[in-house]
C-alpha cells in the first residue's frame, strides 16, 4: 500500500502544497494566495489537496516557511535575549552584538556576560565553567524579565559540555519555561557568527512556537495523524518540535527547496534554476544536484552568520511587479502587488498594470486575464516591458552558469511564464510539470540529515580512523533526525587543514542525509 507525504511552502505571495506517493510522484498540487494570517493559507491548501484522499495513508507533512525570516527582516515579534558567552579570559576584544544594525540590537540585546568557560582546539578547558557568574547573569535576566537566553561557548561544536551545564544552571535559576538556545545546536566553527545565529535563534522563539503550534493545529483540523517536519537551509528536514527550538536553521530554506524541487521535477542535476514568484525572481545553479553555495558570509537582517546558503541572485521581477510607462521607456517594479495580483491586475479588472498583464497580452501567460482592458495596452509598452524582462533573465542566467558551456535553464514558480522560450546562455528552457509548486515539491522530497564540525588532530594512520569516526557521527545524527539507517549516506566531507601551525590538524565538516524511514519501519 502506497504511503503519502505532503510538502507545503509558505512564501510571501503564495502558499503551495503537493501530495506525493512513495515514488515521489505528484498526485495533487495546489496553490493559494498567502493570507494575512498565514496559517489560514495552510488550512486552505490542505483542504484542497486532501479532497478525496484517505488521510490514514498520509505519514508525513513537510513545511517550508518564510515566517521566521520575515520576522527578522521586518523586526516583528522578536524577543529580548540574554547573551551568555563562555570564553573568559579570551574573546573580550569583540563583545557580543558587534556590528549588529542599531535597531535590531536595541530591540534584541538584553543582559550580556562573558564568563569563564569554553574549550581549546584540543579539548582542554580554557577555564573552568564559572557557575557563580552564570547565576549572577541569570539573576540579571530574571530582574529584566528576559526569558530567552543565547549561550555560546568557545569550541562548543567540538565540546558541548560547558554549554549543556550552563543550560542546566539557567533552567534551574530561570524556571523550566525559559527558552535557552545553545550555540552548538545552531552553527559551526566561528564563535562570533555562531553567537549571532544563536542570539537570532533565541529572539525567534516566540514566533517559531506560534508557527509550529499553528502548523499542528492545521494538521489536527484535517485529522492528520502524521510526523510533522520543517525544512532547513540545506534542504533537509527537522522534526517540527525541534524546529520550534531551532528556527534560525529554517531561515533560508525557501530558495533551497525551490532549487532542489526544480531539479527533481526536471530530472536534471546540472542546470541553472530560475524561480519567478509574484514579487521577485531568484536564480541559482545546481552543481551535481546540489545548489552551489555562496562564498560570501550570509547576512540575515543585517547580522553576519556562518550558515552556508545557496549562491543566489535576486531581483524584483515577478508576476505582480508593477509596470509604469514613462517617456519612451517603462520601469518595472521593484514594487509588486504580490498576492493581490489576481484582483489588482488590469486584465483581471483591477487598476494596476503588472507583468502578468504584459505576459498575458503577449501570449506567454494563458488563461489569466478575462479580457483586454478598455482601450487595450499599448503594444509598444508590452514590447518594452518584455525586452526588459528578457534582458534581466539573460543576464541572471549568464551570471549564474559556471562554465562557458550552455546549461539547461529550469524555469519554475508562479511567475515563470515570464521566462522566454529561448534564453541567452541556456541550451534550452525546461518547464517541468508542476513547476509552479517546485518549492513545495522540494519540501516533500527532503531528506533527514545530520552534521558534525570538529577539529581532528592526527599522526600518521589515525587520520583515516578520525575521518571515519566523523562520518559515523554524522550518519548517526542523520538517523537520530529520522533518516532510514539503511539508506543514510555521507553527502559531503570537507577537510580544511589548520594552517600556520606545525603538527597535523584539520577541521572536518561532514554532512550525512537519508530518506525518512516510514512510520511502519520504526
Amino acid at each position: 500500500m502506497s504511503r503519502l507525504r505532503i510538502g507545503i511552502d509558505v512564501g510571501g505571495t503564495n502558499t503551495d502544497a503537493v501530495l506525493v506517493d512513495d515514488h515521489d510522484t505528484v498526485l495533487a498540487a495546489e496553490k493559494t494566495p498567502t493570507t494575512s494570517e498565514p496559517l489560514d493559507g495552510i488550512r486552505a491548501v490542505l483542504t484542497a489537496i486532501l479532497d478525496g484522499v484517505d488521510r490514514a495513508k498520509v505519514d508525513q507533512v513537510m513545511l517550508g516557511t518564510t515566517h521566521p525570516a520575515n520576522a527578522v527582516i521586518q523586526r516583528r515579534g522578536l524577543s529580548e535575549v540574554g547573551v551568555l558567552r563562555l570564553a573568559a579570559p579570551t574573546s573580550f576584544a569583540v563583545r557580543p552584538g558587534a556590528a549588529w544594525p542599531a535597531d535590531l540590537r536595541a530591540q534584541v540585546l538584553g543582559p550580556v556576560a562573558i564568563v569563564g568557560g569554553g574549550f581549546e582546539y584540543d579539548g582542554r578547558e580554557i577555564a573552568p565553567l564559572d557557575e557563580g557568574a552564570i547565576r549572577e547573569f541569570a539573576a540579571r535576566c530574571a530582574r529584566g524579565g528576559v526569558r530567552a537566553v543565547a549561550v555560546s561557548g568557545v569550541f562548543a561544536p567540538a565540546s558541548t559540555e560547558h554549554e549543556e551545564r550552563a543550560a542546566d544552571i539557567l533552567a534551574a535559576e530561570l524556571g523550566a519555561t525559559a527558552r535557552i538556545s545553545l550555540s552548538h545546536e545552531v552553527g559551526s566553527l566561528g564563535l562570533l557568527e555562531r553567537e549571532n545565529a544563536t542570539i537570532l535563534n533565541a529572539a525567534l522563539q516566540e514566533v517559531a512556537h506560534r508557527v509550529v503550534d499553528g502548523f499542528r493545529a492545521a494538521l489536527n483540523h484535517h485529522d492528520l495523524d502524521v510526523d510533522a517536519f520543517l525544512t532547513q537551509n540545506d534542504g533537509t528536514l527537522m522534526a517540527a518540535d525541534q524546529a520550534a527550538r531551532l528556527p534560525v536553521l529554517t531561515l533560508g530554506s525557501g530558495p533551497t527547496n525551490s532549487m532542489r524541487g526544480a531539479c527533481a521535477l526536471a530530472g536534471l542535476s546540472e542546470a541553472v534554476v530560475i524561480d519567478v514568484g509574484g514579487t521577485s525572481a531568484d536564480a541559482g545553479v545546481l552543481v551535481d544536484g546540489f545548489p552551489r553555495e555562496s562564498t560570501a558570509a550570509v547576512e540575515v537582517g543585517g547580522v553576519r552568520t556562518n550558515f552556508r546558503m545557496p549562491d543566489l541572485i535576486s531581483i524584483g521581477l515577478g508576476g505582480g511587479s508593477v509596470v509604469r510607462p514613462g517617456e519612451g521607456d517603462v520601469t518595472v517594479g521593484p514594487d509588486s502587488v504580490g498576492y493581490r495580483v489576481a484582483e489588482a491586475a488590469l486584465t483581471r479588472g483591477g487598476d494596476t498594470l503588472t507583468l502578468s498583464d504584459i505576459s498575458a497580452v503577449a501570449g506567454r501567460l494563458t488563461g489569466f486575464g478575462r479580457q483586454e482592458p478598455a482601450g487595450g495596452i499599448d503594444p509598444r509598452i508590452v514590447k518594452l516591458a518584455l525586452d526588459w524582462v528578457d534582458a534581466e533573465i539573460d543576464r541572471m542566467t549568464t551570471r549564474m552558469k559556471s562554465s562557458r558551456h550552455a546549461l539547461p535553464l529550469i524555469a519554475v514558480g508562479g511567475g515563470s511564464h515570464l521566462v522566454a522560450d529561448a534564453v541567452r546562455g541556456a541550451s534550452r528552457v525546461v518547464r517541468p510539470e508542476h513547476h509552479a509548486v517546485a518549492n513545495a515539491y522540494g519540501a516533500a522530497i527532503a531528506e533527514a540529515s545530520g552534521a558534525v564540525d570538529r577539529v581532528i588532530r592526527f599522526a600518521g594512520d589515525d587520520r583515516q580512523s578520525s575521518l571515519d569516526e566523523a562520518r559515523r557521527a554524522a550518519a548517526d545524527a542523520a538517523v537520530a533526525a529520522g533518516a532510514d539507517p539503511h539508506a543514510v549516506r555521507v553527502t559531503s566531507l570537507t577537510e580544511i587543514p589548520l594552517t600556520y601551525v606545525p603538527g597535523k590538524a584539520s577541521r572536518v565538516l561532514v554532512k550525512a542525509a537519508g530518506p525518512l524511514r516510514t512510520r511502519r519501519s520504526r
Partner: protein
Amino acid sequence: MRQITSEDIEPLALGATLLGTGGGGDPHIGALMAKQAIDEFGPVTVVEPDALPPDGLVAAVAVVGAPTVIVERVPAGSEFVASLRAMSRHLGRDLVAIMPIEVGGMNTLIPLAAAAEMGLPLVDADGMGRAFPEIEMTVFTLAGLPAAPIVVADEKGNLGIFETTTNKTAETLGRTAVVQLGMANAVAQYPMTAGQCAAAAIRGSLSYCLELGRRLGEAAETGLADLLAFAGGRSVFSGTVVDVDRRATDGFTRGTCAIEHAGEPDRVLRLLIQNELLIALDDGEPVVTPPDLICVLDHENTRPITTENLAYGQRVDVIALPAAEQWHREGFTDLVGPRAFGYDLDYVPFTTTEANFQGSVR
C-alpha cells in the same frame, strides 16, 4: 601625521583581504577588534617612521596561530598589550610606536587595536607588504635586522621570551609555543629603532592598503582598471574554477586550484597554494611568482576569495600585483622566492601589460 578612525576600518580590511592573497586570515575579526578598540580608546595616529625620534623603540605585533582557531578562540586584546609591555620590560625601554609586521590578512588590523589601547602611534610601514606565513619572511631579515627577542603571550598571563640566533629559529620556537598556548596568541617581534625602521621597512603600506581597499570597493561598479593602474598590477586570467585540491601538510594548506579560461576552452591557469596563493602557471608556464602577489576575485562583485573558500564552479578574475620595491635586494629569492617554498622554479620578474604600464603610478 593623520588618524585612523572607525570609518577607515572597512576599506582597510578590504585592502588587507586583497593583499592577503587568499590567506593571512579573514581580516573581518581584526576589523571588529579595531573598531571596538577605537570606540573605546579613540582614533589611532599614523606616523611616518622618520617622524619619530630616530633612537625610539618600535616593535611589531601580530596574532599567530591558525585562522580557523582564531575565529573561534577570539582574542582578548590584553595579550597583544602584554606581549609589547614584556618586550619593553625585557629591553628596558619604552616603545614610541607599534608596527604591523604584515599588511595583508588579519594582522593588518590587529596592531591598530593594540595601538588604540596603548595610546601609541602606528607606523605607516610593515615588513612584508602582503601576508607571508613565517616570521622570518620580511624585508627586515634581508636588511639583517633580527626578529628576536620575540614575546609570545596568551590572555591568561602566560608568556615566553625567545632570544634566537636567526629569524628562522625565532619562527620555529615561537610557533612551538603557540601550539601549547592555544593556537591563537600574540607575538611581539622585530624590536628596532625608528631610524632602522625608516631605512628598512616597506614605507606607506597602511596608506597603500587603505587606498587599495577604497578602489576595490568601487571596482564592483567601475571595473578593475583604476585599481590595477594605481597598484601597477595586471589582469592575469578570467575563467571558472574547475578543480580545487587542498591537503594538510606540516602546518601548511598545500594545494592547487585550476581555472579554465572563459574564452579559450583549452587554456588552464593553475594556482599553487601554500596558505596563500603563491604561484600562477598559465598553461604550465609560470607567470606570477612570490613575492609578487596573486589575487583571485569573484567575477560578480570583485570581492577577493580566500583559498579556503575557493570552490568548483566559481567565476573568477585573477590579478597580479607587484611586490613592494623593498623586496628587490640581494637574497630575496632565497627568502621568499619560489624555491623558498619548495618549488623548483625561478622567480619571474613582474611585468604589466602595455596598457597598465602606461597608467602605472608605481
